[in-house]
């Protein structure tokens, strides 16, 4: 194929490959941008912005980072095809439990179960009914409402507590083979909350954003566990937990959130 011929083809591709629609929906996009940044039309325009809005794009699959490999295990524990081994893992977990109990009072989260994500979902559905807006706009409205009213801080604290509780229970659940559908479903719920938070103002803090990204990966891995799980799947989970110091960072975040609450 000659250069000229190829150039002709590329010019043709410019006219045929994923050609944007005309007219572009720029007014509709602006309406959302304006609402998110300046507030509802008619609101003050004297410098009062509504802060960083929350946008939730699409539900996604696994996290985008694979667990670090080849690092010194944080615990020495391993999944051996039937049971967790290594006491240091449990010692670390016990330390985490103590920290959580002191700093936060994890019981209140356990008692609430997975109310957080459900509450978010319920709020989303309620807003959809009230507003009659498109699903994407509804997600934006809900996220914005959460962000502007401050409850996202509460939601983050709740979420961290629930996630810590789940990770605390994980080795025992796996050891006893009780990591059942409900447990895995709870990981799925928390995964949804993780993604909401990643796109929320809570994630403006780089450290928390990084932690949330890692938790997204861990929870996605747990949510994908199947009854006939293999050691490879469990290795992925431990690899992520160990390689990214997830537990330690989670403990630190919980302590921070707890102290800011007080």
């Amino acid at each position, binding site marked *: *194929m000659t250069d000229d011929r190829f150039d002709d083809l590329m010019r*043709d591709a410019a006219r045929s*490959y994923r050609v*944007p629609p005309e007219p*572009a929906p720029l007014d509709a996009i602006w309406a*959302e941008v304006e609402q998110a940044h300046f507030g509802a039309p008619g609101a003050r325009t004297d410098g009062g912005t509504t802060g960083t809005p929350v*946008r939730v*794009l699409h539900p*996604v*699959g696994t996290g985008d980072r694979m667990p670090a490999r080849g690092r010194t295990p944080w615990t020495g524990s391993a999944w051996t095809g039937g049971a967790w081994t290594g006491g240091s893992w449990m010692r670390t977990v016990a330390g985490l439990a103590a920290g959580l109990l002191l700093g936060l009072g994890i019981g209140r989260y356990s008692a609430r179960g997975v109310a957080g994500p459900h509450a978010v979902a319920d709020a989303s559905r309620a807003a959809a009914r009230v507003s009659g807006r498109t699903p994407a706009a509804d997600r934006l409205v809900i996220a914005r409402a959460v962000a502007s009213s401050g409850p996202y801080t509460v939601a983050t604290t709740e979420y961290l507590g629930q996630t810590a509780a789940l990770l605390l229970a994980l080795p025992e659940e796996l050891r006893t083979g009780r990591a059942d559908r409900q447990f895995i479903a709870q990981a799925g719920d928390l995964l949804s909350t993780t993604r909401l938070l990643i796109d929320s103002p809570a994630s403006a803090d780089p450290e928390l954003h990084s932690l949330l990204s890692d938790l997204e990966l861990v929870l996605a891995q747990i949510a994908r566990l199947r009854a006939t799980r293999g050691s490879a799947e469990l290795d992925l989970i431990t690899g992520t937990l160990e390689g990214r110091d997830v537990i330690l960072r989670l403990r630190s975040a919980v302590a921070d959130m707890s102290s800011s609450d007080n």
Partner: protein
Amino acid sequence: MTRVAIAREQSRRVDEPTLIARVLAGDRVAGRELYDAHAPRVYRLTFRLAGDAELAQEFTQETFIRAFGQLARFRGDAAFSTWIHRIAVSVTFNGMRKVKRFREREADLTEAAPLGAMPRDADPDLRARLADAIDALPEAYRTTVVMHDMEGYTHAEIASALGVPEGTCKSRLSWARARLREALADFRDNVME
């Protein structure tokens, strides 16, 4: 002419730094002006990269929400268009990765055939073959081809948006074109005549 239209007309005459300062002060008319100046190109790019109207709309929306939210950090070292295109590319890349993971997971759960697993002999013509070949390019290379050959961005603009040296941008374009030519090699030249 409405009050907003008049204000918009007046703001059209001001330079971009002034416009940005007004947006920072909460002037939504200035915000719309800044948006109008850049949104068409951003939307075209996100559409070309995403290949989906809804995604392009969301990515463009997200780009401007982020840009306005971070406007105070814009130092003016580079042009605003450069800055916002950098955000647009980042938003689109991240968004597409999430969409891809989601789609892969959905496909896995339903045990459907892998996405894009179209047999080569299913290509109806050269144009479709070229489109498939562009789709198959690695993300950074495809983006370079789309920005340069389809949307007319300069190498400097692409390099800035992708955060790579200009030379890297040129070599990527060269490599990508070579792959596309290979993909079309077995087509006769007169297919699209």
